[in-house]
């Protein structure tokens, strides 16, 4: 059973009388431990696709099975629980809580997951160490560089030991050198911990780190290629 099974998923946004087909009839399976990148021009439906996989949005039609569960039938709080335990998010704009230390940002998923204080900080510290930020746990986001902030976000995605990390243009706000460092971190996490990683990027250099490339155009999945 594949980790992610998407069959004939469409997403239609209605703005007044105009209908936008953000996704039309997308079907794809992604297995455990894969490292896939999603490419395509702006407005091709990449983010919509990621939001559906991330249980942040629901398809207009089609089905999405996550670890064999049909996500379409779940309520708000059940989806929140799935996001908490099975999915880690990394965003282009980092999306860390301001005025909150790196440690507390990383602890956040554990708090919503009901983990006790002591175990929480131990696990958060371990996650920070894993992304190379040991010793920075007291820093607030505004005291960290873009690359460091993105590492905190990755630690936050890791801390609950979620099997999937979704990253929508994670290097979009970073310089080339830092982008490479972040991609090396993803590669390491995929190789060492077997975490399934799906990331959106415009840049072939970034996509080159992944093992599989999904190409979108006008809401359709146009190509599904293995990377050499």
């Amino acid at each position, binding site marked *: 059973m594949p980790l992610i099974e998407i069959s004939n998923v469409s997403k239609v946004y209605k703005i007044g009388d105009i209908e936008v087909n953000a996704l039309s009839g997308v079907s794809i399976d992604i297995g455990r431990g894969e490292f896939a990148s999603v490419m395509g021009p702006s407005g091709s439906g990449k983010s919509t696709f990621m*939001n559906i996989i*991330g249980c*942040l*949005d629901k398809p207009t039609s089609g089905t999405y099975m996550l670890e064999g569960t049909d996500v379409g039938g779940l309520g*708000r*709080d059940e989806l*929140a*629980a799935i*996001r*908490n*335990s099975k999915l880690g*998010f990394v*965003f282009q704009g980092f*999306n*860390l*809580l*301001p*005025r*909150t230390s790196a440690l507390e940002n990383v602890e*956040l*998923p554990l*708090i*919503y*997951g*009901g983990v006790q204080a002591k175990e929480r900080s131990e696990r958060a510290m371990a996650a920070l160490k894993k992304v190379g930020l040991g010793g920075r746990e007291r820093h607030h986001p505004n005291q960290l560089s873009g690359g460091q902030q993105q590492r905190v976000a990755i630690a*936050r995605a890791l801390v*609950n030991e979620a099997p999937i990390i979704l990253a929508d243009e994670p290097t979009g706000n970073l310089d080339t050198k830092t982008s490479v460092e972040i991609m090396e971190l993803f590669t390491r996490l995929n190789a060492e911990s077997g975490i399934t990683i799906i990331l959106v990027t415009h840049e072939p250099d970034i996509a080159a780190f992944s093992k599989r490339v999904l190409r979108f155009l006008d809401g359709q999945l146009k190509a599904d290629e293995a990377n050499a």
Partner: protein
Amino acid sequence: MINIPWTGRLAFRALRVNKMRSALTMLGIIIGVGAVITMLAVGTGASRQIAAQVQSMGSNLLIILPGSTTSGGLRMGAGTQPTLTMADADAILRESPAVADVAPVLSGSAQVVYGNQNWSTVITGTTPSMINVRDWQIASGRSFTPDDVKNALKVCILGQTVIDNLFGDADPVGKTVNIMNVPFTVIGALAPKGQSTMGQDQDDTIYVPVTTAQKKLFGTPFPGMVRIILVKAKSADELNNAQSDITGILRQRHHIGPKQDDDFTVRNLTQMMQMAEQSTKIMTLLLGAIASVSLLVGGIGIMNIMLVSVTERTREIGIRMAIGAKTWDIRLQFIIEALILSMLGGIAGIILGVGGSKVLSAIAGWPVAVSPLSIFLAVGFSAAVGIFFGFYPAYKASLLNPIDALRYE
């Protein structure tokens, strides 16, 4: 599973970010709770004082003063002409079925000497009924007997203040004191009564038989003259009957024609105190209205600020939702924030209210008493306001769509 202590810390942090805004938001609650505390302190203080006065005055009491309030169109003021007599008092007791007891009083101030101690105090000449009329207690010794009065014996009963000043800790009963150089035997001591309505020390007095006061101490312009007559009605319901009986009896006895004004005045103390109590109640209600309006305004202020806060933090809410915050995680975060705002306001309000009542009692001389109940009430009210007015913003926050919230700029 919701982590309350952590949510509380989170709320404090959010409130600290906008210190000024948080403080201003609390103002309504501070004023509201301050008013509640002050109102209850004044109300409790006043009713305690009234209760104490009723106790010390005796219940169902009427006071007859000589002189009329108006005389030939001219206000004379009660107590100006001596018109009341012992016989009037006897007639009232005899003829009015509504009257339980009467106590004629003739008083004056005098110097009292015991050994080398002396003390200036009020000498009250009265009858054994006095004790009954005013619901007083004899602490030691005995009260007057009718024989004491009939024979104008030189016996006296001392108030606690007089005992303290003349005898210290020694037992006065059986000793002899000199009042205006006349020797009197102390036959009893009164239980302490404290201050009266007017703030006088009611224990600073000596009681002697009224006849003794008339004949041996003060003298009278005509025989049997008394200064006032105290009347105890049989019950509160009989007060009005007693009052009209007294008026009828005295008008007849004083030969007052139908067109003439009374040459005496009857005062109903219970009525006066009920009036005082009534005005206290009205003031309490007024302050209560101010307090509830203020709490309402404060609550709306909290709701307003919380709505602003939810909008400002839409993105934060989106992040939390993406990471796994459930409906009640988000709701509780904002409800606890509103609760902390209102509770901090409440605590500041309690401090303001307690301070305010102290100032009121110092400046206006009102008796105030801050009761623990009013503090509980204030805390309860501010908590209720926080939860009630915090719920809608929290509810709104919890219904946000996670992706829309995440995209919010």
